[in-house]
Every structure is written in C-alpha cells, then in structure tokens.
C-alpha cells in the first residue's frame, strides 16, 4: 500500500452540522486539519441585484430573508440607511418599539445558536429547552406582524403597526384539555407588552437552566475551551465584529460606541471574553441574552407609560391611513403614488450599521436619485467570520471544525445573500 501523507475530504453541503449549505474542502493529515477551503454561494439568491430592480419598500421583505434567524435586525439596518438619506424623523415610540424588537431578535438568534451549537457538540436537550422559549418570542413576532419569521415590520419612518392590545390565545381541542389551555393562556390574557413582560420575568431562570446544563459541564468544556483561539490582533485583521470580537477581549459594541435609535438612554453592559476561544464566546453570548432581557424590560416600562405616533406622517414616504385615503384627495394621491411608484431618494451614498446579534450588519446604499437603489451592498457579519474559518481550524482535529462552525454562528442566508 502506498504511504499516503495527507488527503482531502469533502464536508457538506448536506451535513447537519454545516448549518445550512456550507461545503468545506478539508486537507487532512491523519485527523489534523492542514487547510480548510469553504465553498459558499449555494444559497446565493442575488438579493443585491434584485433590490436594484425594485422600489425601496419592496426590498424590506428581502432583508428578513438574509439572516433568517434575526429578521428584524436586518430590516433595521436597511430602513436606517433609507431614513438617513431621506433625512426624515422617526417618532420616539417607534424607536423604542424597534429597539425592543431588536433585542427580542437578539434573544431569538442566540437561542437558536445555543441550541444548534450544543447539538453539534452532542448535547441534545439544550436544543429542546431553547426552542421552548423561542416559541414565545415567535408569538410576539406573529402578534405584531402576522408572521412568525419574515416580519417586514419596520418601515422607513417607523413601524407599520402599533403593538396589539391582545394576544392570540390557544383554543381547546381534543389534544388539550380546558385546564391545560387555561395554563397556556395565563400569560396571554393581557396585551403584547404584558406577555413580553411575563416572558422577561421568566427568562433569566431559563438562562440559568441552560447554564446549568453547559457552563460547568465537563464534556462541554473539553469541546470548547482552547478551541479556535483568536487573538485581539488577528480578530482586527480578520474583520471580526460582534460577539466574535468581544470574545477576544475587545469592548466594542455599536449600541454603546456609535449609538443609534435610543440605545444611549438605556442601561446595559457589554460582556467581553479574555481568551478568545469557543468557551469565551459562549459565555459572552449567554450574558448578552441576560443584557437583552434587561433592555427589553426598560423598553416595556417606557412603552407602557408613553403613547404616541409609531410612524412618520410624511405621506410621501409612509402610507396614509385607510380612512383618510377614502375621504381626502391629497391622501388618495399619496397612496396611489407610493404604491405604484414608490419614492425617490436624493442622490448620495450612505452606510448604516446596526449591532446585529452576529456582529456589525451594515447597508451601503448608493442612490442616483431614482425610486430604486442604484447599488445596495449588504455587509453581513458572518461573511468575514466564515472567511476566517481556515485560520481558526488549522491544526485542530476534524471534530473541532463542527465546534468552530458552531461558535461562529453561521447562517447562510446572510453570507450568500
């Protein structure tokens, strides 16, 4: 038999722990990885090209489908860039609603990441617990937008609807008795804000539960401590942002450093790691869930105390109310123009970024003065993270590839666009 020193192995694109459609070409020496070459683009849908052919508002829905586990954060960056170029004012209540849903989205994203990451490494039960809480937050999405995932809730100028005053309830069926239904509906008797408030009071205990399963778990630590170490300098070089950068010990968070909306008025902390390994990034994200919970509580408090407009009344950009369309000539014209042609943005270039659950999600919008974006560039946080995979897995065992893909929190909707 010939003496084979190294060999090449194909990983994915249909692999359960590839988090979607990642294809890796691994060069191995025994079980040690010499080089990893990610092949991406299997989910490329040409979002940027499609956006160029549509009026601005029609692309909001595409933003949801980029990172399909943190939908509203994507929308946020997009509407912010339009607002910046239009230079319009957003009502303060809309800002609070957006921030609240951004943080709900962050918890949604981190719960999925936690469940999937643990599942990849072999802890099945965390996934089930995480999805229990995700279900409640998805109900919040549904209550406010009508859909569980692809909300299209944010609009340039605000949000499309105010928070509902009642929550949808479970109905009695042959599988669930009246008693069970009453228990399930207990938190749903009040408004959406009451429901979220109830969730916020329950959630810290849930995070304790996940931590009880993982943080001091011997197997979990064996699989994550000292795996995929990235130093501060390398993290800069590799373009890391978000929890990946904070895991390497850099206190950088756009919500604090370049505050947008009303983050500057809220009280929260940025957790950072020290070693830059998978375990630190796990701890950072766990703490971020607790901080998000804290932010949501503050938003609920404000939203309960203050009423107000939820969308700008500039009817060139936002739809006039249904009643006024039927009675008022001007509104009728605005309605017609907005839905047949959209609105034109002034010529210019803007970059708007938000602190997305995965890192810095930015939209570069170049307008030539027309009703469609001339060029829309999406800066997906996962893109540079995955580009660094080769460097992070080099020298590790093949089973660590799965742990490192997990810690990067990869979602192909945003990487492939």
């Amino acid at each position, binding site marked *: 038999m010939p003496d084979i020193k190294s060999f090449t192995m194909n990983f994915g694109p249909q692999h359960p722990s590839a988090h979607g459609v990642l294809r890796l070409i691994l060069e191995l020496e025994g079980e040690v990885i010499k080089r990893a070459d990610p092949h991406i683009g299997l989910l*490329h849908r040409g979002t940027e090209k499609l956006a160029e*052919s549509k009026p601005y508002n029609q692309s909001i829905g595409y933003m949801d489908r980029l990172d399909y586990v943190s939908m509203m954060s994507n929308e946020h960056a997009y509407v912010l860039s339009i607002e910046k170029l239009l230079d319009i004012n957003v009502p303060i209540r809309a800002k609070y609603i957006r921030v609240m849903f951004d943080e709900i989205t962050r918890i949604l994203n981190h719960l999925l990441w936690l469940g999937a990451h643990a599942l990849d490494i072999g802890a099945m039960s965390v996934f089930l617990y995480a999805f229990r809480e995700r279900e409640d937050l998805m109900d919040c999405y549904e209550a406010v937008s009508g859909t569980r995932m692809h909300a299209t809730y944010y609009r340039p100028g605000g949000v499309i609807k105010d928070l509902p005053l009642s929550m949808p309830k479970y109905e009695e069926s042959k599988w669930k008795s009246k008693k069970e239904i009453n228990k399930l509906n207990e938190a749903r008797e009040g408004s959406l804000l009451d429901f979220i408030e109830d969730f916020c009071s329950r959630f810290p205990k849930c995070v304790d539960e996940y931590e009880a399963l993982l943080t001091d778990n011997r197997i979990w630590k064996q699989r994550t401590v000292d795996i995929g170490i990235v130093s501060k300098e390398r993290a800069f*070089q590799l373009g890391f942002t978000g929890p990946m950068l904070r895991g390497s010990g850099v206190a950088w968070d756009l919500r604090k450093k370049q505050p947008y909306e009303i983050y500057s008025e809220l009280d929260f902390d940025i957790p950072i790691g020290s070693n830059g390994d998978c375990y630190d990034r796990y701890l950072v994200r766990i703490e971020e869930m607790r901080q998000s919970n804290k932010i949501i509580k503050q938003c609920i408090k404000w939203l309960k105390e203050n009423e107000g407009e939820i969308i700008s009344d500039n009817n060139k950009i936002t739809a006039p109310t249904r009643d006024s369309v039927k009675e008022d000539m001007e509104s009728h014209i605005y309605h017609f123009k907005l839905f047949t042609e959209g609105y*034109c943005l*002034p010529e210019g*270039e803007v970059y708007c970024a938000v602190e997305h659950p995965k890192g810095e999600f930015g939209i570069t919008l170049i307008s030539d003065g027309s*009703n469609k974006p001339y*060029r829309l560039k999406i800066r997906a946080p996962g*893109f540079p993270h995955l580009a660094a995979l080769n460097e992070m897995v080099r020298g590790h065992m093949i089973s660590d590839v799965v742990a490192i893909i997990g810690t990067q929190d990869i979602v192909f909707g945003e990487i492939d666009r």
Partner: protein
Amino acid sequence: MNKSKPSNESYLKENKILRDLFKKHLDIYEYYFENNSTVVFNQDSLIEIMTTLQNNSQINFEILIDIIAIDYSDYGISEWNTGSAHNKGYSRGIKKNSSGRYTYESSKTNTNQPKKRFATIYNLLSISSNCRINIKFYCDDDDNPSLASVTSIWSSADWYEREAYDLLGIVFIGHPDLRRLLTDYGFIGHPLRKDFPLIGNVEVNYDLNKERVVYQPVTIKPRVLIPKVIRNSDDGDNEDA
C-alpha cells in the same frame, strides 16, 4: 425633506482626528470628497494610502469593514421620462435598453456614467478612535478594471475582493487566490454589472433522456413591473404649501 448638507471642509472640521490625519499623512496625495463622506484618491497610490491608514501616528483603522464595488454604467438613467409631457401624454416605462430589460442579445449602449465605469469603496473602521472613513478608487480602465489587492494589509480583504471579482469582474492584482466565490462552479459573466440581465443567461433543467442536469438559455422574458424614475425634489410639485 432635504436639508442643506455640510460642505467638504465642514466634514473635516467636525472631526479633529480626521483633520489631523489628512494634514499629517494624506495631503501629499491628490484627493476630493464625494457625497460629503467618501474620499476619492487616485488608484496609483492605493497601497501606500491603505498602509498609511492602517498604521500611522494619528489614527489606526484596524478593521476593514467592507469593500463595495460599483458599476456606474447605468447611473442616472431612468426608464420613464417624468419631466415633460407632450400631446400624446407622458412617455411610458418601456425603454427597451433599460437595465431591467437587458437580455443576452441586447448590446450595451448607455454611456452616461459620471467618470469611470467601475469604482470600489473601502469602508474602514478605527476601534481605537471610534471613527469610520470611506476611501474610494475609480478604476482607470473601463474594459479591464483592476486595482491593487489589500490582502497584505487586512486579511479580511481576501473574500471581499473575491466577491468583487466574482460579481463585478474587478481584478485585484496581488491577490493570492482570486477565484469566484458566490456564483456557481463554471459560471460565466459578472452578475452585478449593469449589463448583466436580471433574468440571467442560463437556466438549469433535468433532462430525462440524458438523465442529468443540463444548462440551457433562459426561457423567461424580462419584465419591469415598476419603471425606474428619477424625480427631482426641487421640481415644485413636491413642495407642500
């Protein structure tokens, strides 16, 4: 809606760190501002400028956030003339050579681009000074656009440049591994160029006789639901009394 925007000088005036940076390190190069935020330099000195920005005595841009490549060949061209009406009414949004209706056969005729056809914007972030800057380079050659690669300065440029090459066909000289990134294996063309049809050139099909997946020319027709229009906000009809 449009307030008057600050001029170029005030952009630098507002930010002391950037003003110092320009005075000490960048004033030796020729530059001008575009859209009040983007600094345009000549592509010849790309590497020197980028090295200076990444590491100098004033401010370090540690992170390359993004590279944005643009094709300007369709800039400012609308599909519907909104300015004037004649006795037959307004023109309709049916211009054959508009970018939404390109097909493989149609030839590129628009030459309305402002200066050069291709440009790239480097979006830089300084963590230590909490500051961003956009640096822009136009590619001198419209037919074979190329720029020097910055992979030796920021490692993250690797995939950004591969993406720009894949989608817009800009060649980055000095890149260690300039392969396609997002498109299919064996893909032809650069999809984000404005002369690349929105409907694409080929479609895939499963051929029952050959018992394999085959490529064939697209069978769908391009369609524009809402034409691209450019309305000047100073046109008067937009002003509310």
